[in-house]
């Protein structure tokens, strides 16, 4: 069983004897996604706890090897399955690689803002400098360019700035962490982006219901059309409620994974042709794509935040402030 868990592609340098060619891309996609070992700095550490809920009982294991040693469950193609019949357990709530990287991202964001907030408290009148200046200008940008034009009411802006700033910096840190060698992109896993989009869904609809009432929210399901068009408009609008977060999920996930897949393909050309003359072209294009990915990291962070703000503004409609004629799209 240990041979499937072993990271053959990164340890074998060129001759991937254990993986048939048709399985290389699925294997790489699986490596890019979530798995049960903690990968950091090119090493795999088997320290992540396994938490399973199966058949009405909870199972806790210290790590995957302990779980396989006990014998009730085993790892098959990166998924935990029952040893007896190879089916998956009811619920797998294990702490996985991506979860640990999310925690690291949260710690980085907390540390940055704790540090810069302390600077403000120590010397409130001194002009910000260095990293503090970067953070302040980004926060002001999020407030003035993203939140304020969309929420349109100073009370709501004050209330929801923490959410949007948190969203912005959390996604930015996770995206940029994926560009460091030996790290992992947590936003390149669909679970992370889905969770972010679910919070966005709750904020969009929760805020709309709180501000304009359930009646106003239901009225927005008409999309501004007369009542007799309800049989057509209501299903479309209800579908629209769910496609927005789904598009947010897939957009961030696909943009973050696509760059990695292109990088892997370019580097993979060297191993495919087994020639040193391909290497300069591969490395040159990789550096270009790497620069592009740095841009995409910032752009996708901006787009996720701004679309959440835009959808929130559209769900509120023109009820909060009267200088805008947009309705729920």
């Amino acid at each position, binding site marked *: 069983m240990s041979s499937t868990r072993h990271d053959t592609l990164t340890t074998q340098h060129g001759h991937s004897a254990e993986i048939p060619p*048709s399985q290389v891309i699925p294997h790489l*996609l699986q490596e890019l996604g979530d798995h049960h070992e903690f990968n950091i700095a090119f090493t795999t550490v088997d320290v992540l706890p396994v938490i399973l809920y199966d058949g009405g009982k909870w199972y806790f294991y210290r790590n995957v090897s302990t779980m396989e040693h006990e014998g009730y469950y085993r790892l098959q193609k990166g998924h935990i399955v029952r040893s007896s019949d190879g089916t998956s357990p009811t619920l797998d709530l294990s702490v996985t690689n991506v979860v640990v990287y999310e925690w690291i991202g949260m710690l980085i964001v907390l540390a940055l803002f704790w540090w810069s907030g302390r600077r403000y408290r120590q010397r409130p009148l001194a002009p910000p400098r260095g990293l503090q200046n970067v953070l302040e200008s980004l926060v002001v940008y999020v407030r003035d360019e993203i939140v304020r*034009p969309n929420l349109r009411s100073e009370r709501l802006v004050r209330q929801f700035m923490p959410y949007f700033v948190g969203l912005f910096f959390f996604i930015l840190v996770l995206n940029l962490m994926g560009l460091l060698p030996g790290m992992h992109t947590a936003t390149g896993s669909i679970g992370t982006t889905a969770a972010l989009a679910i919070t966005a869904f709750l904020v969009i609809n929760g805020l709309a219901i709180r501000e304009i009432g359930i009646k106003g929210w239901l009225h927005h399901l008409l999309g501004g059309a007369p009542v007799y068009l309800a049989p057509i408009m209501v299903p479309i609008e209800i579908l629209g409620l769910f496609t927005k977060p789904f*598009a947010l999920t*897939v*957009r961030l996930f*696909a943009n973050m994974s696509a760059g990695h897949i292109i990088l892997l393909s370019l580097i993979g050309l060297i191993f495919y042709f087994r020639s040193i003359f391909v290497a300069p072209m591969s490395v040159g294009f990789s550096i270009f794509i790497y620069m592009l990915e740095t841009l995409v990291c910032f752009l996708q962070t901006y787009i996720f935040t701004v679309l959440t703000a*835009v959808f929130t503004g559209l769900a509120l409609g023109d009820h909060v402030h009267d200088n805008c004629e947009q309705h729920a799209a």
Partner: protein
Amino acid sequence: MDGYGLAWLAAGIGCGITVLGVGNGIGRLAAAALEAGARQPEAAGDVRTTMIIGAALIEGVALFALVVCIFLALKG
């Protein structure tokens, strides 16, 4: 040609058609935004924001198609 071959062929062709459509869409959007910005430079900031949102929405549709293509390609 077996089913897997057909699936891979469908994924490749679908990907190409998706990119055609999206390239056309975002190209038109950028052209219109540039023109608007050139005609009225003081509105360029607003136009750019709206353009990025529009581009993101077009890209979202493309990503739905690409997800279908990836599912087809991973059939093998």
